[in-house]
C-alpha cells in the first residue's frame, strides 16, 4: 500500500480553483521534490496533505489518502493524533513558528506532552536528546534559549528535531533551506538525507532551488500555475524529459563549469 496518495485532487481558496487535478503516489522511504515558480501552488499541495490550508482553502474534488485512509474528513482529535507523530512539517523559518516569548524548551516539552503521557523531566530529556541527535551541541543550552537567540541554521535544526521526535512516516518540508547560507544549507540537506537512511522517513520537499531538489529527490514534480506540468524519476526528468517548461527551468540553473555569459 502506498504511504501517500493524491487522487485527482483539486484545491480551491473560496471559489478560485488553485490546484487542479493533482496526482501523486509515494511509498515509504521515498523522497519527492516539488519544484516550480512562486505562485505555482506547490506549498498549497503539501499544506493540503496536512490539513493546514489557510482560511477558505478546501479540497474540492478528489481524495488524499494516507496509508489507505482518507485525510479529508478527519476530526480535530484525529488530526491532533496524526500531526506531529505520523506526519510532520518543517517550515521555511522554524523560528517564526515558535512563540517568540517562550523558550525553545517550553515549546518542545509542551509538544511532547501533547503526544505522550510522561513527566516533564522525561520530556525535557527527550527534547535534549533529539536536539543532540540533530547535531546541535549542548542541547540543554538550546532548550533554555529563546528562538531569537539562535542562528537561522540552529533554528532550522530545532524545527527538524521537533518534527522528527516521533519518527514520522512522512515529513513535509516547505522551503526548509531558502533562508539559510549556502554552507548551512548543505548541512541541513545532508541531515535530511540521513533521516531517510536511518529512519526510512519519506520526505516531500518543496523548493525553488532545482539543484537541491535534484540532489534529494527520487521523484521530481514540476508545477506551473496550479497544475502538475511534468513528473518522473530524477534521471528521466533531468535528461530525457520532453516537456518544454521542465527544460526551460533546468536550463536556467547556473552550474559550475556550465554556460558562461561573458
Amino acid at each position, binding site marked *: 500500500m502506498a504511504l501517500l496518495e493524491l487522487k485527482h485532487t483539486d484545491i480551491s481558496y473560496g471559489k478560485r480553483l488553485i490546484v487542479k487535478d493533482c496526482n501523486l503516489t509515494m511509498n515509504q522511504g521515498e523522497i519527492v521534490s516539488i519544484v516550480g*515558480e*512562486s505562485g505555482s501552488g506547490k506549498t498549497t499541495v503539501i499544506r493540503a496533505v496536512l490539513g493546514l490550508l489557510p482560511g477558505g482553502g478546501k479540497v474540492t474534488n478528489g481524495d488524499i489518502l494516507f496509508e489507505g485512509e482518507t485525510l479529508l474528513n478527519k476530526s480535530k482529535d484525529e488530526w491532533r493524533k496524526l500531526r506531529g507523530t505520523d506526519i510532520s512539517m518543517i517550515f521555511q523559518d522554524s523560528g517564526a513558528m515558535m512563540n517568540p516569548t517562550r523558550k525553545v524548551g517550553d515549546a518542545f516539552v509542551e509538544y511532547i506532552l501533547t503526544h505522550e503521557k510522561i513527566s516533564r523531566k522525561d520530556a525535557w530529556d527527550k527534547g535534549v536528546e533529539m536536539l543532540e541527535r540533530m*547535531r546541535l551541541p549542548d542541547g540543554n543550552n538550546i532548550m533554555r534559549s529563546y528562538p531569537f537567540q539562535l*542562528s537561522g*541554521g*540552529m533554528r532550522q535544526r530545532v524545527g527538524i528535531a521537533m518534527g522528527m521526535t516521533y519518527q514520522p512516516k512522512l515529513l513535509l518540508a516547505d522551503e526548509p533551506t531558502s533562508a539559510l*547560507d*549556502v*554552507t*548551512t*544549507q*548543505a*548541512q541541513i*540537506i*545532508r541531515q535530511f*538525507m540521513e533521516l531517510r537512511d536511518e529512519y526510512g522517513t519519506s520526505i516531500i520537499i518543496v523548493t*525553488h*532551488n*532545482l*539543484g*537541491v531538489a*535534484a*540532489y534529494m529527490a527520487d521523484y521530481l514534480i514540476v508545477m506551473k500555475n496550479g497544475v502538475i506540468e511534468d513528473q518522473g524519476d*530524477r534521471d528521466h526528468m*533531468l535528461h530525457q524529459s520532453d516537456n518544454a517548461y521542465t527544460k*526551460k*527551468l*533546468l*536550463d*536556467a*540553473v*547556473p*552550474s*559550475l*563549469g*556550465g*554556460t*558562461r*555569459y*561573458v
Partner: protein
Amino acid sequence: MFDEKDMILEAKHITRKFPAAGGRTLVACNDINLKMYKGKTLGLVGESGCGKSTFMRFLVALDTPTEGEIIYKGRDITKLKGEELRQNRQNIQMVFQDPSGSFNPKMKIRDIICEPLLNFKRIKKSEVDKVAREYLEMVDLPGDFADRYPHNMSGGQRQRIAIARAIALEPEIIVMDEATCALDVSVQKTIIELIVNLQKKKNITIGFIAHDLGLIQSFAHQIAVMYLGNIVEILPAEDIDKHAMHPYTKALLGAVFDLNMDFSKKIESIDSEAPSPLDAPAGCPFCDRCDRCMPICKEKRASLITVEEGHEVACHLYTKEA
C-alpha cells in the same frame, strides 16, 4: 587578463568598525583592497554578515569607511561632500535586492525612471514620457509600462525597472546587491542575460554581491571571496572550481548544488556556522572551521599573496614561510 590601465576604481585598506554593545567593536570590513576594471564584473561572495554589503555601500557613498580610501578618477570618493558628492552619484549607481522596497509606491514607472535624469537636468519635463519608453525598451519591457505603478508588476519586471533607473544616468559603475536572489530561477536567468547585454553594450563596470558561487561564476570576470570582514581569495571567475585554493572557497564550492553534480556523492560541507564577527578568532578568521588548520593559523592572520596573475589567496597553506 586585467590591464592596469583599465582600472577605474581602487579600494585601499578599507576598514569599517561599528560600535557594539558592551564597549566592544565590530569589525565589518578589515583592510579590504580591491580593484575594479572598466567593463568587467567583480563578484563579491560570502555568507550573511561577512561585510560584503557594507563594503559595496561605500562605493555609492551610503556609508563611509572608518579608515582607508576609495580612489575613483584620481580622487578619494569617501571624502566627497555636498555638491561634489551629488555630482559623483551620476557615475556610480546601485540596484537593490528588493526592488519593491526601493521604489516610491506612489510614483509611476515613468517618473521613477526619469527622476535621476530630471535631478541632474539631463532632460526636460516634456521629454519624460519619451525617454521612459526608451529605457523600458532597453530592459525588454513594453513602453506602456510607463503608466503603471510598481505594485502592478511582477518581481522580475520590477527588477528590470530598477536596472533601467540605474542605467538612466549612464553610470560607469553599477553596484548590485543580491539583485536576483528574490527571483525565480527562470526569471533570474533572463535578468542576468539582460545585465550582461547591457554591460557589453555600454561597457559598464559591475560590482555584484551574491552568496551563490554557482550563479556568480556564470557571469563575473573576477570573484572576491569574503569571510568575516576579510578578503580570503581573489580569483578569475572562469573555471573557479579548478583554481580555487583557499579552504573556505572550496567549502563554498562544495556547498553548491547544481544539476551536473554526481548525486550519489556525499555532501562535503564544513560543520558548524560562521562565528559572530564580534568573536572573530585572533588568527586566520576561518581557522575554527578549517579542516587544514595549522598552529600558525591560530596565531597569525595570513595576508593576501599573489599565486598567479589575477589570483590572490590569504592562507598559510600557500605562504612560503609556513
